[in-house]
């Protein structure tokens, strides 16, 4: 890429970020709390949250299992295998739980939301709402945005629980680590607010980013099959990168 092309790319990226920010402000500014909006938001929580449970639970369990396996193996060489729960707890609650949940959420639910809104655009359903004098942003975007913000922290809790279950299965069930030592180390090393709370704060931030990008890419999708495909791809890529970048920024701020 030559200098001019780089400049153009940068201008394009800044413009897109600006548009996405305006879009988020518009969506949040017109937030309503009517019977319909609460009902629709709960329906979306079911579609994008509850239906993501299987992948989150399976992934959480296996991540916990493999993380404990690797950590236990390394710590055992120094005779510190019993401390596995300390590493598992800190890494899981502060970093892996929120980050992996947000990335899995983007792949499972973010793509579905982007494709759904993109298809609504392609099949003129959003135009039809506009033509009936109904605010499509309020009706389509707001419930999905809110549902994502609610779902990601809850899914993070589920992910953490399942990962811990995976850790317990391997450490206590297979390696014979003393349960009292396992839970005692975990309790002593993981702080409720500075570790667990920080992780949950990250989960909320990732929830905003993941659902914001999903609805934005769906909303701005070109009304063609290629446009919808691009919207879903962009959702996964942009969410993954944004979550990892934001994780670094938030971790640095919380040090």
């Amino acid at each position, binding site marked *: 890429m030559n200098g001019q092309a780089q400049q153009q790319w940068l201008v394009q990226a800044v413009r897109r970020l600006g548009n996405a920010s305006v879009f988020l402000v518009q969506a949040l500014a017109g937030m309503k709390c009517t019977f319909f909006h609460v009902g629709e938001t709960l329906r979306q929580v079911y579609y994008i949250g509850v239906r993501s449970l299987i992948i989150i639970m399976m992934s959480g369990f296996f991540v916990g299992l493999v993380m404990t396996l690797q950590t236990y193996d390394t710590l055992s060489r120094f005779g510190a295998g019993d401390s596995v729960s300390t590493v598992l707890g800190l890494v899981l609650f502060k970093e892996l739980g929120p980050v992996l949940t947000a990335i899995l959420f983007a792949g499972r639910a973010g793509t579905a939301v982007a494709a759904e809104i993109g298809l609504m655009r392609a099949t003129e*359903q959003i*135009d039809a709402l506009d*033509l*009936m004098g*109904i605010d499509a942003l309020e009706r389509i975007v707001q419930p999905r945005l809110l549902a994502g913000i609610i779902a990601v922290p809850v899914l993070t809790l589920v992910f953490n629980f399942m990962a811990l279950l995976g850790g317990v299965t391997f450490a206590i069930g297979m390696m014979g680590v003393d349960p009292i030592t396992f839970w005692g180390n975990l309790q002593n090393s993981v702080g409720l607010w500075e570790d667990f709370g920080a992780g949950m704060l990250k989960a909320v931030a990732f929830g905003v980013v993941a659902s914001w990008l999903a609805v934005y890419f769906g909303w701005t999708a070109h009304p063609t099959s290629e446009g919808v495909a691009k919207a879903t791809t962009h959702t996964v890529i942009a969410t993954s990168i944004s979550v990892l970048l934001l994780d670094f920024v938030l971790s640095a701020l919380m040090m």
Partner: protein
Amino acid sequence: MDTSNIINPNMPAIRLEGVRMVRSGQLVLDDFNLEVPAGKVTAIMGPSGSGKTTVLKLITGQLKPDAGRIFIGDIDVCELNRGELNQVRRHIGVLLQNGALLTDMTCFDNVALPLREHTSLPENLIEKVVLLKLQAVGLRGAAEMYPQQLSGGMVRRVATARALAMDPDLMLYDEPFAGLDPISLATVGRLIRQINRVVGITSLVITHDVAEVSKFADFACIMANGRVVGCGIPDQLAADGNEVINQFLKGLPDGPVPFHYPAPDMEQQLLGDGDDE
């Protein structure tokens, strides 16, 4: 802004004055003028790509013209902000080409949607209104079905019921006959006529179905190359000596409206200039 009744029977329902529109670098409308009489069914006809749908999008405020003015009654659509435009749109029913029903709702809920959004009618009254609208399009029995369970023609009829739900002053139909079988086609044509007669609303139909127009429309306008080339009573339009009208109504491939999109010389393109050897 008072929008209690946007159409005045003593003046044109819709006026487009000197509208110019460029889309994707192409001049779609140039010095476009049109008057749609109140309380009548007017058809806008023209070859594909002549800008008919663009005219509809300009009237509904989905697009802003590069120049010119657009009036619905005496309201200048181009001057409205978002809130005012939404107010005006509540008085307009629009039937889009593919119906555009919300796919996650039943037909009943689709028709009830504008009533639930814009009125404070009790649910039992909404139910009666919706069933009456669905009865008018012959689909009361399909009230609990989802759009994906219906044929294209049925979807369009439900969409018509939805467009009529708020008892609009103005109905806009975008290609209501495209892809319909002869029975559905005649039914939709009759429906447009009936709605106009019974409810007394103004209807604007965008179509290129020459045969059907004379059966339901009071007036027809033919557009080509971004302008209106002829307007009048459908049966009399054929008598007009205009070459473009003649070509369109008779479906002639050769005439002022080119069938072929501009392209380089075919012989030269297919056979090359002999350099291949």
